[in-house]
């Protein structure tokens, strides 16, 4: 499946099958959660990152069913297809953004998602306590969502942010690596 076809599917589902919600509501809700976590963990940002990832993981495991039910897409033939599906269909229908897939590792098991826009981080400025800028990955929940969702379709992955415009970087980039295909649940063909 090509990138353009994935984009078309994403666009189509976004237009016809998705209930829309006010973007500010999402941004403010998510911002509140992160701020509260920072407070609860006494600005231990490693902990906050971890909690966000865990929350995302639980969301991803549930969200994947909605994704499959709405999109009706079949299994991806390879990890490159998976990357396009995540970027152009998944992010499109749930966040109405379509990050760029790039920086493939030579073995095709690692790629980066570059976010030109990120609705979770609108209006956000990280606290200037000298540490948040270096330690907090504000949108870390997205890593967990990908991890949970892909685990349900038999892919164990690792995802983390490597840069974030909130920290003053030029881009917001997430690195996604395939660890392995989980074989127990797989039809023999796809291992």
């Amino acid at each position, binding site marked *: 499946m090509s990138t353009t076809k994935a984009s078309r599917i994403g666009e189509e589902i976004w237009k016809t099958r998705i209930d829309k919600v006010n973007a500010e509501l999402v941004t403010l809700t998510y911002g509140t959660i992160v701020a509260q976590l920072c407070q609860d963990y006494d600005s231990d940002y490693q902990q906050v990152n971890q909690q966000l990832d865990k929350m995302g993981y639980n969301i991803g*495991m*549930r*969200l*994947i*069913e*909605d994704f*499959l*039910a*709405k999109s*009706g897409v*079949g*299994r991806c*033939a*390879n*990890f*490159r297809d998976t990357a396009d599906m995540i970027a152009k269909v998944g992010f499109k229908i749930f966040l109405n953004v379509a990050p760029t897939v790039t920086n493939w590792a030579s*073995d*095709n*098991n690692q790629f980066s998602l570059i976010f030109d826009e990120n609705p979770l981080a609108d209006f956000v400025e990280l606290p200037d306590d000298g540490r948040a800028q270096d330690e907090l990955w504000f949108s870390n929940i997205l890593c967990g969502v990908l991890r949970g969702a892909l685990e*349900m*379709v038999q892919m164990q992955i690792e995802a983390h942010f490597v840069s974030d415009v909130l920290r003053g970087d030029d881009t917001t980039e997430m690195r996604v690596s*395939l660890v392995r*295909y989980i074989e127990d*649940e797989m*039809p*023999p*063909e*796809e*291992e």
Partner: protein
Amino acid sequence: MNTSIHHDQVGCRTAKDINKLPTALTRKEQADFEHFPATSTSTSISSEKSTPACCILCSASTLSIGHAVSTPDTPDSVAMAVFSLIIINKAGGLIYQREFQAGLRKLSTNDYLVLAGTFHGVHAITRSITPKLPLAPTTNSPAAASPGSNTPVASGYSYPIPGASVSGLEYLETDKFRLTCFQTLTGTKFLLFTDPMTGNVDTIINKIYELYADYVMKNPFYQLEMPVRCEAFDRHLGAWLRGRT
């Protein structure tokens, strides 16, 4: 291991469902409904333990067709002809079971659990007995040929109809009913029992999957892989199936 838990919870659910059923019926139907259990229990006593599960299912669907024909002013039951739904989690455990026709005879809860587990096993077998063709050197199998494929390439054989994935059992049909199995990519199976004449079963199952994604998976208090006890799912499922004609 979880059998006892399933048993209790499924038991609760079905008792509740039965209590709800009569409220939706007209007085005439209600009279039918009240007569129905009496006849069904009397016939079922002999077959309670000895008859294999599939026979009970067959006779149940026959009975319900007869019921529908005898009350022509209930177009629903004739037109939908969706008898029941079973949802099996990826480990082969029964997580949901429901009838959509009043008075449809039920298996015992334990039989449903056995049916779910057995079907899960049979489904896995049908998948693994898919014929494997020797891989001709000239064949351009897409899996083997696609550059940048990360999946380990199956060496030495290919499947009939390249491009379609190995699915396992999808339909099981008798003269009296048809069982359609839809397995999601996450491994959950939806088993729909319908009249063999019912068309568009795929559409029905897709809609059920959507409702499941909405009212079960998105319910934050639903524990994954556990029996489904979501009242909103029951309600929307019932309403949607009733609304179809």
